[in-house]
């Protein structure tokens, strides 16, 4: 654990990519294979199951630190991270331990069979044996909140350097359904392709936004200057569903979401068409709700994603379909290195053969002969149930991860309203102890009615100024939330808007965010709820 805690601290202390890779390389060279694979699991989001709920962890930490609950909660507000708060509050430890990361994780995993009293004893003893730095990473692992500011590509780079394997090979091998008990470091670095895992998806090819900011529109001419001959490009609508890979291999099916979550059970409607695909097929596309031949807004899908049990009612209200736009594996062969035009023809052939055309859909290619036509058509994206276009180079291979050049997303401008900040709460992590989470309101008659929360969109300097304002203009405090004097106006952007009976305003926004601080506007100039409602459409 000491090595792992030091690794975490060292990575925390540099912003430089090269140094991070070198720190990781040194670490991987020095620790045991079992620690390596556990570290890799943690760094790729494969956390051990949470065995003690955070309420109990908090309660026992308060007892050990000997402070009242309210002070613990306020400390948490200041620090912005539960694991760190506890590490800072516990009394200095006198004990020691010799366990490495793998051993600690094994202990955490075996807690399931202990009584609550035994877990408490175990936890207090564990804390007593650790340094502050160790406690911090241990708490993060224990509470299931372990995250690290190191991209997967850096870890892959370090592993590639010490193993001599291609980065793309490692990226592929660490995807899919594994955990440190089923997959060893040896499996990772062995010579032959580890294609025995039937479930393993390919790394998703990701697109950059061609329009870097929503502030500045790119004209058709600028797009032309960036992308060149329209004849080299394929345009498709950009769908607002869940990016997913659908796999059929040897009679088994798997559906992976982009967050590398196995989502097969979440989408039972997709199973029949997948089973009917030829074995050895992997499709890339969008899982999305479809009613009366139209994709539904994302919030329809959202109502069912989180559910453990999909009731008949939910299945009837939000039926799924799959809009495919690429084929990555055909007849058991990885065809990612073939050009897009070829992969598209494979996909179209598969589609012709399917008997499930209402479920297995194919993203239509949007024909255009010049960028101006496409620009004009993009403004009608919402009428086509899309968020804009995807632009893909016809002769491009299917890349690993986010690479600049071949795939672009060209989104329609966000909807926006001017709104007044009325509540504020402190942020977490980098924004701990600063008021960065705001609630915004629009006018309903002479009252301000809250309609959205937004976090991002301000510069550090603006955050500082807003924080300064909030601390000096607080009207009331409710726990961590402050009611702020209505004075600041912000332009709030969002991707979509839907009716909602759960919200006071009667509307729910998709991806609300701050576009800019309107220091030029007074609160009387903010928009009204009618403006929002007029955006609802039908």
């Amino acid at each position, binding site marked *: 654990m000491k090595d792992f805690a030091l690794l975490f601290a060292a990575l925390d202390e540099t*912003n430089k990519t090269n140094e991070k890779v070198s720190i990781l390389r040194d670490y991987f060279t020095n620790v045991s294979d079992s620690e390596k694979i556990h570290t890799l699991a943690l760094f790729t989001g494969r956390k051990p199951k949470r065995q003690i709920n955070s309420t109990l962890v908090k309660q026992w930490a308060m007892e050990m630190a000997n402070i009242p609950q309210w002070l613990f909660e306020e*400390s948490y507000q*200041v*620090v912005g991270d539960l694991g760190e708060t506890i590490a800072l509050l516990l009394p200095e430890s006198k004990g020691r331990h010799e366990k490495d990361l793998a051993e600690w994780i094994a202990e955490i995993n075996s807690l399931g069979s202990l009584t609550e009293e035994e877990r408490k004893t175990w936890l207090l003893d564990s804390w007593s044996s650790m340094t502050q730095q160790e406690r911090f990473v241990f708490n993060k692992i224990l509470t299931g909140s372990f995250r690290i500011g190191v991209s997967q590509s850096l870890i892959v780079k370090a592993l590639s350097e010490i193993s001599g394997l291609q980065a793309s090979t490692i990226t592929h091998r660490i995807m899919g359904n594994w955990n440190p008990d089923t997959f060893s470091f040896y499996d990772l670095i062995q010579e032959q392709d580890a294609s025995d895992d039937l479930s393993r998806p390919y790394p998703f090819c990701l697109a950059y936004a061609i329009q870097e900011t929503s502030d500045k529109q790119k004209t058709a001419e600028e797009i032309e200057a960036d992308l060149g001959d329209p004849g080299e490009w394929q345009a498709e609508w950009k769908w607002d569903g869940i990016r997913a890979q659908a796999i059929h291999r040897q009679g088994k099916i798997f559906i992976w979401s982009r967050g590398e979550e196995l989502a097969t059970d979440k989408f039972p409607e997709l199973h029949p068409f997948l089973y009917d695909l030829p074995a050895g097929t992997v499709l890339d596309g969008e899982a999305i709700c479809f009613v009366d031949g139209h994709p539904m807004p994302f919030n329809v899908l959202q109502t069912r994603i989180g559910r453990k049990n999909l009731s008949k009612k939910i299945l009837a209200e939000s039926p799924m379909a799959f809009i495919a736009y690429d084929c990555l594996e055909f007849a058991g062969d990885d065809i990612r290195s073939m050009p897009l035009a070829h992969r598209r023809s494979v996909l179209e052939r598969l589609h012709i053969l399917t008997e499930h055309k209402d479920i297995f859909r194919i993203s239509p290619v949007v024909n255009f002969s010049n960028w101006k036509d496409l620009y004009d058509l993009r403004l009608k994206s919402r009428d086509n149930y899309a968020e804009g276009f995807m632009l893909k180079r016809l002769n491009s291979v299917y890349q690993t991860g986010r690479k600049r050049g071949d795939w672009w997303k060209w989104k329609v401008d966000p909807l926006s309203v001017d709104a007044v900040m009325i509540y504020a709460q402190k942020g977490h992590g980098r*924004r*701990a*102890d600063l008021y960065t989470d705001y609630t915004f309101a629009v006018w309903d008659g002479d009252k301000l009615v809250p309609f959205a929360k937004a976090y991002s969109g301000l510069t550090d300097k603006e955050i500082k100024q807003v924080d300064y304002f909030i601390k000096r203009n607080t009207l009331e405090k409710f726990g961590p939330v402050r009611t702020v004097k209505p004075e600041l106006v912000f332009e709030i952007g969002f991707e979509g808007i839907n009716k909602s009976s759960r919200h006071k305003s009667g509307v729910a926004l998709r991806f609300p965010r701050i576009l800019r601080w309107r220091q030029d506007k007074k609160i009387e100039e903010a928009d009204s709820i009618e403006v929002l409602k007029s955006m609802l459409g039908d």
Partner: protein
Amino acid sequence: MARPLLQFNENGIYCAAGDFYIDPWRPVDDAVLTHAHSDHARWGSKRYLAHDLSREVLKYRLGDITLETMGYGETLYKNGVKISFHPAGHVIGSAQVRVEHKGNVWVVSGDYKLEDDGVCTPFEPVKCNTFISECTFGMPVYKWKSPKEIHDEINNWWRKNKEEGKNSVIAGYSLGKAQRILQHLDLSIGKIFLHGVIANTNEALARNGITLQETTRITSETSKEEIKGAMIICPPSALGSPWMRKFQPYSFGYCSGWMSLRGAKRRMAADRGFVLSDHADWDGLIQAIDATDCDCVCLTHGYTASFTRYLNEIGFDAHEAHTYYGGDEASEEDHLTTDIVNSEGDVITDKQVSDAQEEEEL
């Protein structure tokens, strides 16, 4: 009931019986200063009283002022109110101000810390009826490690940077933190250079008889060759300024109590954060307050609300006071940026700096 000996009004902490202010934030006739940091020593008052060792720095910062000074333990009367200074351990020349009138004793802590930093006179508790204490770090998550450990970390960091062919740039407030860092640097590693503001401050301290380790001022003539592998001490305001360019390649370290939180450290984007503070930590505050045997304690700048509530719960008679020393929840932003300097590191103006930009912590 009689009028309290000290009161908070719109100008600062006022002693009606003696007709003077302690650390006023607006110009007044008579100002008694706890120390020379700009949120406590503001420009514009007619007469100042401060500790002997604050004399030259105050003149450097506030210009031609009418200033009287005295040492620790000496006494002076203003309109029958007895005033004395006692070591606060915050920075060189920092004092707790003790005022006594008709048997009633109040102490204003100013800023303070309990550890001996090896540079300024260590803190001494003073018995009183009412104690006005700062609480910048009045949350239990703030607990300092021993200064020795931190100074070792700084020297090890310097050594490692030098081995890797990098210069070391370390930031700390020009009065206090800068001297504290300087005095504990291991000169066998390399040479130490100073930003102009810190060099000026050190020269002022030298006029006050304070000797510090050997250093060189950075000027436009300083060559890249000279500073190879050196340690450069600068104020936080130099961070991100063009002045830093000449030091490349460098590693940047930041010294502050705020560095104990990961979030604050990430916001500063420093390569290294060193938890080195000139304020008392949670345990230090409670210990200091307890040692005064006071009947009543007033808390100023910092986490006043939470700290006051906690003190009341453990049996003190504690009250929150509102001051202009950093806002009700001093965040490091309230404390950041110091003097406005030009690219040579010289102060452009001291007096036109608005409140928001002034140096605090600190």
